[in-house]
Each structure stands twice: as C-alpha cells, then as structure tokens.
C-alpha cells in the first residue's frame, strides 16, 4: 500500500480551494447535474482530487480521490478481477455518484450505492477536512456519517477522498430477454443481478459460475441478448417493488428494487413532516450559511 503524504497534500489543497466563505459547488462528471435542482448562478466551482491512493486486492477495499471517474477506478480494479458497485455513467466520478446516491441497474444483485462507502474524507462548510467512517469492511465506531453523506448532493460536505468496498468480478455475466413474467422470475431465481421490465419484455442479468448461469437461463427460457435496453432519462420514480405490477405507459422498471425510469419528469417524493424537519436541522447543523451547492436540495 502506498499513498500518504502526496494524497494528504492534495486533500489539503482541495480544502483550501473550498475555503470557508462564499457559495461553492463541487463538480464531477455532470452526469446527474440537475438532480435536486440547479446550482445558483455564479457559484464558484471546485473539483475533488482524482487518482487511486491505496489498493490492496486481498483487502477488497480501495482508497481513491472523489474526483476519480468510476470507469478509471473499475479499469484499475479489473486488473485484479474486482470492481465497485457504483454505476459507471459515462464520465461519472466516484464522488459525484456517491453524492447523488442513485444506484445502477445492478442494485438487485449488488445492493445500493450507500453500502459501498466505508470511509469518507470531506471538506466541511468551514473548510475543514473531516473524516467519517473507517477503512475496514466492518465498523460501528461512532455515528454513521458515511450513510448521511451518500445522496446528500454535496449539501453537507464536499467529498474529497473515499474508501470503497470492492467486489469480485463474476466469472460470467450474461443478459437474457423475452416476454417473461418478471415477478415470477424474481421469486424463482436465486439472487439474479438485474431484472428490467418495460411492461412487455423482461431483461435478465445472470452472473456467477457458468453452470449456474446456464441452469438459471434454461429455467427462465429466455434467449441471450447483447445487453439491457436503453433507459428513459426524463424521470425516475421510487416505489415499493410490488407496486411495479400496476405500471402503465412507457417505462423501464427495475423489478425487485422498485425504481421506474420514465421519459417524462417525475414529481419529488413526499416526506413526513417529522422527517422534513430533521432534514432541515441536519442541513443547518452542517452548513448553517447554505454555502455548499446552493440551490440544490435533497427535498427538491
């Protein structure tokens, strides 16, 4: 393992750049730039440091700058047959994906993005470097600020460096598709990686040992295809998985997960008044002047 001084220097420089005054926005790959509303015009932009600081394959964890692209990270991990469970949207950065908190279409098999982050070093609204979590795969030392940061849209702190849980790349990974009952497949198959459904066609991603994938594919009676369908990008809705059965219109749904991709924009989800008040208080505690990514809100 290596890293140390050079990385600490890059983190300190980033913290200085963020500073303690004036509105500031952290930019990643701009792949989800409109989530949570537009950043106020004239806001100064900063970028988190990029690059892998430490990677020990036998630990299955990696430490990298938040500005590293997911594609670069996966390429480096791939040399050791590992990957991270983060969506590799074109040009997306690790910090951006974590700040947005949205999982990719493999969530059914890999779990949500929020379970990937083990440690975060972020720059606070006061311009200080703060550490949350720890660099090991299991940790209950103190409050779980990492979970709070994932999906916070950079409104509580700006991610500088992170430690992520890695996972082995499966031996085989094959997509299948056909006019199948996706809900039946979800119940009958053991832990498929993804089931997508547009109301007519079902796409199924099976991964693992070749013989298991072949057996599950035979059970599903679906021919192999090149990959998943294009996802509508206008809107995204989160529902209880069983509510997907009632969907109509044009959509691609993540079966077993409850995410619906639509062409048209979706209204923001509702929160109970008690939860809204807690959100407001947390924002006030971490960024009382509202200088971090002003204009963006997790409640928008």
């Amino acid at each position, binding site marked *: 393992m290596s890293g140390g001084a050079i990385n600490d220097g890059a983190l300190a420089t980033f913290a200085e750049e963020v500073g303690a005054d004036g509105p500031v926005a952290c930019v990643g790959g701009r792949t989800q730039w409109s989530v949570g509303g537009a950043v106020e015009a004239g806001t100064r932009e900063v970028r988190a440091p990029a690059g892998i600081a430490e990677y*020990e394959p*036998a*630990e*299955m964890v990696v430490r990298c700058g938040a500005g590293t692209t997911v594609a670069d990270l996966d390429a480096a991990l791939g040399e050791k047959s590992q990957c991270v469970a983060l969506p590799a949207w074109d040009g997306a950065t690790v910090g951006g994906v974590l700040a947005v*908190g949205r*999982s990719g279409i493999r969530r059914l098999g890999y*779990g*949500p993005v*929020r*379970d990937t982050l083990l440690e975060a070093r972020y720059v*606070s609204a006061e311009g*200080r470097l*703060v*550490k*949350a979590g*720890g*660099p*090991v*795969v*299991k*940790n*209950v*030392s*103190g*409050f*779980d*600020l*990492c*979970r709070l940061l994932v*999906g*916070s849209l950079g409104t*509580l*702190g700006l991610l500088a460096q992170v430690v992520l849980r890695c*996972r082995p790349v499966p031996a085989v990974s094959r997509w299948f598709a056909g006019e199948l009952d996706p*809900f039946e497949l979800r119940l009958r198959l*053991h832990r498929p990686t993804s089931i997508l459904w547009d109301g007519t066609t079902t796409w199924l991603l099976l991964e*693992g*040992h*070749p*013989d*298991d994938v072949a*057996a599950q594919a035979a059970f599903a009676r679906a021919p192999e295809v090149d990959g998943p369908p294009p996802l509508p990008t206008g809107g995204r809705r*989160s529902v*209880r*998985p*069983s509510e997907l059965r009632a969907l109509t219109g044009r959509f691609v749904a*993540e079966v077993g*997960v*409850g995410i619906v991709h639509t062409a048209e924009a979706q209204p*923001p*989800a509702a*929160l109970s008044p*008690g*939860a809204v008040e*807690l*959100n407001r*208080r*947390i924002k006030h*505690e971490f960024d009382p002047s509202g200088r971090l990514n002003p204009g963006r809100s997790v*409640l928008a």
Partner: protein
Amino acid sequence: MPDALVADLRAALAPERVLAEPLELTLYARDAGIIEGHAHVVCFPLTTGEVQACVRIARAHGRPFTPRGSGTGLAGGAVPVEDPVVIVTTKMDRILEVDEEDRVAWVEPGVLNLDLTHSVAHLGLHYAPDPSSQQSCTVGGNVATNSGGPHCLLYGVTSAHVLAIEVVLADGSVALLGGVDAEPAGYDLRGAFVGSEGTMGIATRIAVRLTPTPPAVRTLLLDFLSVEGAAATVTGIIAAGIVPAALEMMDAEITRAVEDFVHAGFPRDAAAVLLVEVDGLPAGVEAAAQVVADVGRVHGARSTRVAADEAERALLWKGRKSAFGAIARIAPNYYLHDAVVPRTRLVEVLSRVYEIAARHRLVMMNVFHAGDGNLHPLIVFDRRENGVMERVTAAGEEIITACVEAGGVLSGEHGIGLEKRDYMPLIFGEADLDAQARLRHAFDPDGVANPTKVLPAGSRCGDLQRVPEGAWI
C-alpha cells in the same frame, strides 16, 4: 415520599409496567458488559404512544431517558447514566406484517432476532444479521448497535437490512425515517439512526429486509497447526475472489473449550480452526468450496472436514456459537473485546494480542469473524482475584491501541457505548467528532436521549458538556 415521576409513568402506562423498587432497578443497572449505572425508574411501554408518553414524562420531570432491548450489549450502550428513565422495548414484540413479495417485514423493536428468522422460514426467507446472541437480542437493539454476526461477511451488517424506522424523537414526536421503496427522499436518516445507540431516539417500528435462503450451502472446518496458517488462509480466500457467507476463526484454547463443551468433533490439538461457509447456487458453491479447501491446503491445513448434511452443519455452528457458554467452565468472568483490523494484518495483530495477554498474566482466547478482520479477543478471569480488574482493563486498552495502530477501528459490531467512548479520539480528530456531535444535536438538541454515550465529553467544538456521573467500569 411518592415520586411524582414514577406516579406519572404509572398513570400513563400501567402500574405493573413501571418498576421503581431498588431491587428491581439493579436488574437494569448493567447490560451484558461490566459497566454499572443506576436507573431512576424502568418502564415497559406497549405502543408507540406509550413510548411517547414515557419520553414526555421524563422530560417534564427533567430526566433523560435510556432505551433498552434485551440488554445483551457489551459496550454499555444500555447502561443507565444520570439516573434516567429506562425505556425497555421488550414487550413491544409483535411481527406486524410480512410481505413475501417485497421481502419486507415490519416488526416492533422487541421482536427477538431469531424469532423473526423462525417466523419467516416457511417462506424460504430469513433475517440475515445473526449476532451470537440472536436467541435473546432484539431487533431494536440490533438497530441501535448496527449489529453484525458471522454471516454479515457476505450479507452485510444490520444497516444493510433495515429499510425504514419509526422513531420517537427526544421531544416525544414521531418521525418515519427511510422507507420501503428503493430511494426514499431526503437525507438517509435511516442510515444515520442505525448504530446511534439510543442517542437519537427510540425505534418503535422497524421495516427489515428479508433474505432468501440460499439453495446450496457448504460448511467446511479447516484445521491448522499454526495461527499464521489459518490467518494466511483467510487472506488467501478473499484474494482468490471468494466472499464466503461466513469465515470464522477459533484459536487453540477456545477450540479445546468448545470441544469439551459440545463434542462436535473439533480437533483438540489444533492451533487454530477455520469455520467457512459458502452459499448460493450449486455449481458456484462447489467451486468456491474447492478453492477454500485448496487455499487451506497451501497454507498447511491438516484436514478439511465438509459438513455432510444439515445436522452436521448445525453441530459445527453450535460449536462456534457456544463459545461463550464453553468458557464459563474455565473462569467465572470474561471480558470480550471487539475491534476490526485490515484482514492482511491479522497475523501481526493476533501475535501482539497474545503478547499483551501474556505480559498481563491473563488467559486469552480468540474466536472471531476473521473474514472481515473483526477480532474478538476474550479475556477470561475471576474478578474475585485481587487486582485482576486493573490488569484486564490495562490489557484491553493495549489491545485497542494495537488494533488502531494496525489501521483498524474501535468496534466492528458491539458499538462504542461507554466502554470505548473515551477511545474515540484514537481514531477521530476534533473536527471528526464535532461532525458526529452535530448529527446527534440535529436529532436531540438537548442531549436527553441516552446521554453521555458514544461521544466523549467536549466533542462539540465550543460546547460545554456535562461530565458524566454515576458510571464506573
């Protein structure tokens, strides 16, 4: 003189569900660890409304409150400090809803972990986090401490299995954190609450994810003549790209103790054994089991026993999970530590841990979740022996320091509570602790929910906190 606080609680709940006799209170002075506090009164609400009443009455009388489940925690999280109202959730023990299709169950906090798994077993489902105390610990307590367990290596700890929590906050109001849909709006308050050890409120309803029971399972017992060989096997298995469902290590002392206790056929002369479980679909499981056996052989495994059937598998696990029953035959008291180190540093840290115990003339055993580097050094002793507590405490402090120096953290699954609160500065700086204090403050601005736990006094920059009283180790 009648105590107005007790009278108000009795009126709001029912007299028999509010305990205030000194003898009754002593039963709630401790958790399963060694720290003792004192409760002013102990109450047993049945509903969310009654929990709200308990909190509001406590506040009206200027008292803090301490939530409690079964009291199986080891870090002092449920130990009453500052004469609080102890709110015990064990009578809120209903499974409210099981949704087979969504694989979600809504439960009350007092449901026992293993009862939940048993109640959904007929659906081919289970609740994955499986702490060793799962027969007696509650789901609410699991949420408070973000509990782990052997099978959390593959499946993740409690936070990965909790979707939504109804919480009574420190002001007596109710909030729903998270949701049973995939991406609830707002900050991940659910994630922030899990592991908060009662300092952010009391969970009154919990939605947990249920996990399908795997179609194939292989359980292997590998037997080594050196701890180094066993530890190298752990690293080798992970490096080979296998994430077993569980990967547990037991050293020589504990293996002998367990064998004498359960007669599971564990090798009494082994320096260490590994209990490894792989699960999933049949071909993948066979291949993974083969890799585990091969890696073990490379690192000097003397034998590899594969459980032939469910009965043998259950026997091997019984051995692992009875470790703490087994040690009761050796000495009356034990102090179980909990720390995590990078898996590649296991050998080095273990040898330091043995050296520390030897130097303090203490009997030390190790039975732990090796796959995620979660050490559980276990010191067995007789507290009647003069001066032994000082040696136990000193050794514990050195063990924690050794783990932190190896790049580890203070706790993997037991939590910080009171036990490790003052060690927090070993891994967190002033700004880090301040951030955690801010989160706590957002949930509980007056610091009345389980005061003095987790964060050392003065964590909040520029804030004066009361020095805790009435607790001693």
